[in-house]
């Protein structure tokens, strides 16, 4: 069975600084990979996804993620964090033939002034 690890439960970043959130997955083949964000009182919003092709994926709100097959990783990055980026971020894996998603435990991002 596939699994997703987000090693950082909380991360604090200064506004304007760069951000990288880590995600590692365990699966025998190349999965579909997703990053979702949940702001307080909101549903999970899809930031970006990787299905195939270019391993550097651009998403909404200035986020990007890079799929590294050799490291089984799909880290999320943003060059300059804004206070409105404070939220919880979830990495998720989808598997061909199944419609369900497997999520990591989430990383709470705090943005300091």
């Amino acid at each position: 069975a596939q699994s997703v690890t987000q090693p950082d439960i909380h991360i604090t970043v200064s506004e304007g600084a760069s951000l990288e959130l880590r995600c590692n997955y365990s699966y025998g083949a190349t999965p579909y990979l997703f990053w979702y964000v949940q702001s307080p009182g909101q549903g999970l919003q899809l930031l970006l996804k990787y299905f195939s092709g270019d391993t550097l994926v651009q998403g909404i709100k200035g986020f990007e993620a890079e799929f590294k097959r050799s490291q089984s990783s799909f880290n999320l990055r943003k060059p300059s964090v804004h206070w409105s980026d404070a939220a919880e971020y979830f990495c998720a894996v989808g598997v061909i033939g199944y419609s369900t998603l497997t999520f990591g435990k989430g990383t709470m991002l705090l943005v300091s002034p």
Partner: protein
Amino acid sequence: EAGVTQFPSHSVIEKGQTVTLRCDPISGHDNLYWYRRVMGKEIKFLLHFVKESKQDESGMPNNRFLAERTGGTYSTLKVQPAELEDSGVYFCASSLRTGGFTEQFFGPGTRLTVL
């Protein structure tokens, strides 16, 4: 276009009581999913409807949970009787197609507290 809506947003009940959660998917989305997040844990899949049929209910924790989707529109998830370990946030999601992998649109969740 309205997104996925869930009702109620919060529910506090006592152990042994019954609670029913409702999810309204995006109009036209045949696929509807229920997920749950217990505090401190991952968001975990519960079940998947295609229209009114249960495609996959492998994530349902036990027979105290009953999900329905009559008419293939909204869905309800009933917990009866509720136990302490059922506390958590219940998310609903919907997607347009079943083939391949399409984006799942999530609702804001229902936070269930069982005392």
